[in-house]
């Protein structure tokens, strides 16, 4: 398709690339604005702060009880990753290997919590959790966060399992492997990349999951993103730089895991696994 292009086509191409560059520059500048502000002493009416300091991080650490918030965040994220793996991976195996009646219905059941936005089902879910006296506690936050992540693990892992030849399992059976050994010595090693990819994506999504945590968290069960929301909401109570220092702590927590996740998955997978099943 190497024809010479008309001027209109060239202009169109330049316009598209200019748009892309403009967008990327704005994204980078938005994130950089937070980082620079968190390091600045005083920033008013200039391109950059008057000087740089680390003291906002120390004050944010105390003011927002970041130590406690980080502990809660890691507890929630760890439990969500563990339980969504334990519930999701076996279900994915069953759905990949068996064609039982109502399988389509089950797939739709798993698709819905991922397609319906958390705001829509979050309020009824929080109501039920509060009725069960789980609202406002760590276990309530974990349960609420599991609602979209369990289906996510199932749907991400189905293609990974489907690509493993069932004859490998049959061969292991022929050589006398029981279910336990089959699982430990055949399935787990073959599925490790799939499990790792699914769970890392769950981890990244759970750190950023605002709505469900916001609706179910009590004062002692706030994760970092909810604490950040409250801080920004009450802007003016604390120094702006202090809020941004917390925002940077949140960004680092989230992006470190994203970088690790990107070693195992393609960036497009973060959005496209949903679509594959949506047909």
């Amino acid at each position, binding site marked *: 398709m190497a024809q010479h292009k008309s001027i209109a086509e060239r202009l169109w191409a330049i316009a*598209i690339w200019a748009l*892309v560059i403009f967008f990327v520059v704005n994204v980078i500048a938005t994130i950089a604005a937070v980082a620079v502000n968190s390091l600045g002493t005083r920033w008013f009416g200039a391109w950059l702060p008057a000087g740089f300091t680390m003291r906002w991080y120390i004050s944010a650490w105390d003011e927002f009880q970041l130590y406690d918030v980080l502990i809660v965040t890691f507890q929630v994220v760890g439990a969500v990753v563990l339980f969504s793996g334990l519930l999701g991976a076996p279900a994915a195996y069953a759905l990949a290997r068996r064609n039982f009646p109502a399988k389509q219905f089950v797939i739709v059941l798993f698709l819905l919590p991922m397609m319906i936005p958390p705001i829509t089902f979050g309020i009824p879910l929080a109501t039920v959790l509060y009725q069960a006296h789980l609202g406002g506690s760590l276990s309530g936050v974990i349960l609420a966060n599991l609602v979209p992540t369990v289906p996510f693990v199932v749907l991400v892992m189905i293609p990974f399992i489907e690509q493993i030849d069932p004859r490998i399992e049959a061969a292991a059976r022929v050589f006398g492997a029981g279910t336990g050994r089959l699982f430990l010595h055949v399935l787990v090693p073959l599925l490790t990349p799939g499990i790792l990819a699914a769970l890392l994506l769950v981890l990244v999504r759970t750190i950023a999951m605002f709505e469900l945590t916001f609706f179910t968290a009590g004062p002692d069960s706030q994760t970092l993103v909810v604490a950040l929301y409250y801080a920004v909401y009450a802007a003016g109570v604390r120094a702006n730089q202090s809020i941004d220092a917390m925002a940077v702590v949140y960004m680092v927590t989230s992006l470190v895991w994203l970088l690790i996740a990107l070693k195992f998955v393609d960036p497009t997978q973060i959005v496209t696994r949903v679509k594959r099943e949506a047909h």
Partner: protein
Amino acid sequence: MTDRAIPPPYPPPHAGEGRVGARPPLRVRLALRDLDAVTLLALPAILFVAALFVYPFLYGFVLSFKPKAGDWLANYRKFFSDPFLYDTIGATLWLAVPATLINVLLSIPVAMRVRRLQRRRFLTTILVVPITLGTVLIAEGLLNYLGPQGWFNRSLALLGFGPVPLVHNYTGVMLSLIMSGFPFTFLLTLSYITGIDPSLEQAASTLGAKARARFWHIILPLLAQGLAINLCLSFVQTFSVFPSAVLLGSPAGATRVISIAAYQAAYEQYDYSMASTVAMIMGFVQLAVVTLILSARALVYRGAVGGGKG
């Protein structure tokens, strides 16, 4: 189905289960329909989703018909008679529809360009960052960046434009919806476009079709299904905007979206019945628009879908 013929659909007799042979006909009958021990592995996840997703939804639906005072429809009547409440639907649509259209329509030409890029991983990685960071952080970043003293307005001043109010209003929320929504729609469109078999376009090119004709007659019809799904996903996400409408918008004014009304009913008035009503109405509107998009797609283009995707 063919490679599934080799492993026996039911475990061998020595698999350690005492009841083997108790009622072999039923067991075999179930196994032949692919209902065996392996199928049961799906049960915990199904029960979990049923208990914490389906049940709360039904519970909320029933609860919305049990108002604190009045007959069973009192909540819905209150919602649709109080402009403070029913105006939120319009305010939300006024944000969600333009944001969805901008994001999805822009994603098509950009994805058409980017698909030819050999090293697009850098771009896709940068675009995943705003998705990963989420709306709360984007809102905080935009408050700095778009504020009256922020870099954006300073750059405009260099070009000779006065400071433009971009935060705490409709524009701020719209820009945040584009910043966190466009990467999502773009990556989705990109994966649909790269899934179209390139030989189809090469064939058309050989037959003399120009780029514009190739797009309208080959790419777009094959993309219709993907675009419809993209529009649906993007709409339901923007329709449920919450943190940025509060932090970047004017939550008492132009960007008082429906999720704010639901939140206030639940956590400020502690009226869970009314909150469920608002949540249900939110769900109904989303369902209505999704149905509309999908039926419009069926009207526009009928035929084979998927374009050579597996």
